[in-house]
């Protein structure tokens, strides 16, 4: 798969590691090498490549993260029902087992690729790359990537998406941003889901959830959504429309975007080049000529 498009990341992939090894010979004859690159360099490299695929076709890719059962697939179903007439969607589904979520999406006539991760608790850029080559990106407006339900691992892996959406469902409690800072800090928008349950589960205070999010130095919007009430999706649908338009506008100017939270500390300390300035060429095939 990666082999066919020439971007397989192997130890032979020299440019990943070449030349930033600063050398020093220690007294006992050992060689000390300074590297200062992300532990996930090869994933980040693949993610940059995925973003190039998407940008070439003008597709906005949105990664959905949450705990299991917070309502990711239900939100996608409702989004397809609401906007399916205006936009062309595709979905990549990540799950440990089963094709269930992809089947729910396909039942609405939307192309969906299921990635079953086995025992991996997150998607990585290589898995998403394989899925991308199984989809036709031609004419797509938005590609949703539903990550594996997990509040810990998915946040560490760039997939090539442009935006991260983190969902928090009312039954989970309003303190989750304080307990799982990494994934909530990564959000470009926080969606509180199952808000129809607020009257029943009234110890969930949406303002408190927002305060916990702000304590992570996050200024992103907090939206409320319910798949049970028709009016519950307006904020989310407006956000999506605005993001898709902004993305088209950026691409027209030859720019792309990455999720808002950049690894600031890593960038200040690493020697590595920005993955966004991923300059070298690969040959590609698309789903169509495969």
């Amino acid at each position, binding site marked *: 798969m990666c082999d066919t498009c020439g971007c397989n*990341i*192997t*130890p*032979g*992939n*020299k440019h*990943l*590691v*070449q030349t930033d*090894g600063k*050398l020093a010979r*220690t007294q006992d*004859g*050992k*060689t*000390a*090498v*300074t*590297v*200062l*690159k*992300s*532990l*996930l*360099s*090869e*994933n980040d490299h693949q993610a940059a490549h995925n973003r190039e695929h998407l940008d070439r076709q003008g597709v906005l890719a949105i990664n959905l993260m949450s705990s299991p059962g917070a309502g990711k697939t239900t939100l996608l179903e409702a989004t397809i029902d609401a906007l399916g007439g205006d936009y062309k969607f595709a979905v990549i589904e990540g799950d440990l087992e089963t094709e269930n979520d992809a089947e729910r999406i396909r039942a609405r006539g939307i192309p969906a690729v299921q990635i079953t991760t086995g025992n*991996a*608790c*997150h998607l*990585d850029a290589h898995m998403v790359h394989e899925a991308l080559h199984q989809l036709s990106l031609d004419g797509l407006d938005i590609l949703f990537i539903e990550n594996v339900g997990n509040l*810990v*691992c998915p*946040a*560490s*892996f760039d997939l090539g998406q442009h935006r991260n959406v983190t969902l928090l469902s009312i039954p989970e409690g309003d303190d989750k*941003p*304080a*307990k799982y*800072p*990494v*994934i909530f*800090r990564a959000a470009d928008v926080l969606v509180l889901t199952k808000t129809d349950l607020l009257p029943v589960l009234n110890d969930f205070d949406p303002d408190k959830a927002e305060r*916990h999010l*702000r*304590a*992570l*130095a*996050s*200024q992103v919007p907090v939206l409320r959504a319910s798949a049970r009430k028709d009016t519950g999706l307006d904020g989310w649908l407006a956000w999506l429309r605005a993001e898709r338009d902004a993305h088209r506008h950026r691409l027209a100017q030859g720019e792309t975007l990455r999720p808002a939270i950049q*690894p*600031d*500390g*890593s960038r*200040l*300390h*690493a020697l590595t080049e920005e993955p966004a300035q991923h300059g070298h060429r690969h040959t590609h095939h698309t789903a169509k000529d495969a």
Partner: protein
Amino acid sequence: MHELSVCQGMLRQVAAIASEHQASGVESITVRVGPLSGIEPELLAQAFPLASAGTVAEKAALIVESLPVRVRCRSCGAESESTPNRLLCGQCGDYQTQLLSGDEMLLASMELTT
């Protein structure tokens, strides 16, 4: 846990650098991680022997340096130490801060035998 995949990715980089320097073995690998990287140092240390078995880094010592969480305030300019879920300015309490350190997951350096 994703520390195993992180460790495997790291070891592929390590193997590539070792072969570039025609090293016969890797003595030590030093990584730097911050609490906001999503990587748990203990889990990384547990994953390392599993992931490194049979590789050039099989006998290597894994040294994990933990970095503190530090922020710079966009309002008052102060720099302060912080905790992972309270990234507020230690001086004025503002939440509009920039992270200076704490989200790193870096392969810092290696010692090779040649």
